[in-house]
């Protein structure tokens, strides 16, 4: 290409330089790779975990097959193990926990971010975040000393009188049971929902609120119909976190759930959850089949979590409208 001066030619070549070299020069590719590795570490840990779970439960898997998921007995003496009562207990207590914690938590978060004066909001949130650190043993003890007697003497009789026509609220009232388990879990997961949702709500750009108010909405309408939907995805993330905590909680649940591997329709009845039985029996389990059955329960919980998370995400996709923050 005669006639074009060299500097111009060099400049043109530089502009066409491969993106990779550009990236290397500015450090972006490195940053991309490095952060990708960090994100991938989660996958690495999960794969290793599942592999360990599988390897340590093969004997039980082969012996029971699908019967494990439908079996209702848990007999360490005769070696007959079935997971159904634990799956049921886990589902019921977690569902109850979310049913109570989500409205309470999101409602409190809305109040703290929209209505409360900043000083009060910060002070209350400070205390709430602190309570995420209370060991679950202490929640369990509080459950035993305060919640269970309260339920046995006042809570459950009240529910029986008012809603006793539902099979959910029938049967003998011990205080301990799935109702107590669900309520303790609700108290334990609510700090996560409040704290994270409040942050997300406060980060909603003020223009959104002003736009709604400018159109004549009341503050509540602006909050409920504009701000909260805008923050929906972040709030969902906090609920997933709460759900995860509820599914995996061991100590507090086992102290108040009654630890009876039975399936009953009533919330007053004692039940058992997967995490609780693993925590209870793992250290004392003798015999390989027993241990492997417990580890297999861990695998079942993992599979359960996959399913629940999947269903929740599908539900979100179907109820999503346009106009969220992302």
């Amino acid at each position, binding site marked *: 290409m005669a006639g074009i001066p060299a500097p111009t030619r060099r400049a043109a070549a530089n502009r066409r330089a491969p993106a990779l070299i550009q990236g290397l020069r500015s450090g972006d590719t490195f940053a991309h790779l490095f952060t990708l590795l960090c994100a991938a570490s989660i996958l690495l840990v999960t794969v290793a975990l599942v592999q360990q779970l599988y390897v340590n439960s093969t004997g039980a898997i082969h012996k029971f097959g699908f019967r494990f998921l439908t079996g209702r007995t848990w007999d360490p003496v005769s070696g007959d193990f079935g997971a159904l009562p634990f799956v049921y207990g886990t589902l019921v207590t977690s569902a109850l926990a979310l049913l109570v914690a989500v409205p309470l938590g999101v409602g409190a978060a809305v109040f703290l971010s929209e209505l409360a004066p900043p000083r009060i909001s910060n002070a209350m949130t400070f205390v709430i975040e602190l309570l995420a650190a209370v060991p679950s*043993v202490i929640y369990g003890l*509080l459950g035993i000393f305060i919640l269970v007697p309260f339920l046995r003497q006042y809570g459950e009789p009240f529910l029986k009188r008012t809603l006793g026509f539902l099979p959910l609220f029938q049967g003998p009232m011990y205080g301990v049971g799935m109702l107590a388990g669900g309520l303790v879990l609700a108290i334990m997961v609510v700090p996560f929902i409040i704290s994270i949702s409040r942050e997300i709500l406060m980060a909603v750009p003020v223009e959104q609120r002003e736009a709604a108010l400018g159109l004549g909405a009341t503050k509540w309408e602006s909050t409920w119909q504009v701000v909260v939907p805008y923050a929906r995805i972040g709030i969902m993330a906090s609920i997933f976190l709460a759900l995860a905590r509820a599914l995996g909680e061991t100590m507090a649940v086992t102290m108040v759930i009654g630890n009876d591997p039975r399936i009953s329709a009533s919330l007053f009845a004692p039940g058992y959850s997967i995490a609780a039985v693993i925590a209870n029996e793992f250290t004392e389990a003798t015999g390989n089949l027993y241990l492997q059955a417990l580890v297999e329960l861990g695998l079942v919980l993992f599979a359960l979590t996959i399913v629940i998370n999947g269903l929740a995400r599908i539900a979100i996709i179907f109820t999503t409208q346009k106009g969220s923050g992302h």
Partner: protein
Amino acid sequence: MLWRNAWRKFVNYFMFSMTGLCALVTVGVLFFILGYLVWNGGTSLSWAFLTHLPTPVGESGGGMGNAIVGSAKLLLLASAFGIPIGFLGGVYLAEFGGRAFPFVVRYTADLLNGVPSIVMGIFAYTIVVLPMKHFSTLAGGLALGVMMIPIAVRTTEEALRTVPVVLREGGLALGASKWKTIATVVVPAARKGIVTGIILDIARVAGETAPLLFTAFSNRFWSPGWNQPTASLPVMVYTYAISPYDDWHKQAWAAGLVLLALVLVANVAAKLFVSGRTAH
């Protein structure tokens, strides 16, 4: 028209009162828990409690000095390991990732969060303790650190997503490279949310007992270095709470209180650190 407006006004007051009630109920319950802890454990708190080693039941003057130091060491190690990885992972999901891979990572992070802590403890046991042939602070810190990663990833990602796109575009338009924009513009803008996530993360693992039982074990004595078993506050709470002795029960409550104080210090430090940096 007037009627409809009156109704909307009523809904406004009513719903906000409802949310106020929610806040009151939750904070009330939580304050009650705090009060109960103080009431039951407050009497056991003393200088001896904070600095002495535990004594057998019936002997006075025992304390949980080694457990306090142990918990501090474990949390430090866990945070040093888990927070950077989690934070950077969250940065990836929010800033770099496409659609499929981040979806998988997010999903898996939620799964990992739901694994019972005892299973994580057993996992860390097989990976670290068995090869090393003994329990150690290192194993405990690693177990807790691994538990911290998924939470940090999710909360960091959500915090970064709240930063409006215009800020990123502004940085890029000024000629900064992508990572520089993230480091100097996006992350500082999201720092409050990120720190909240980290605080919750630390709080969550600070109270975990089951993973420590199989990794850090516990220790009646001081634990120098990182290679020995170490006492920790949650394990002491657990051991003392299930004992038959009233004196040990009181100490268990006091230990719970000290644990909260420890987390409070971390909380305050983190918040101060964040607000110390002046805004753009």
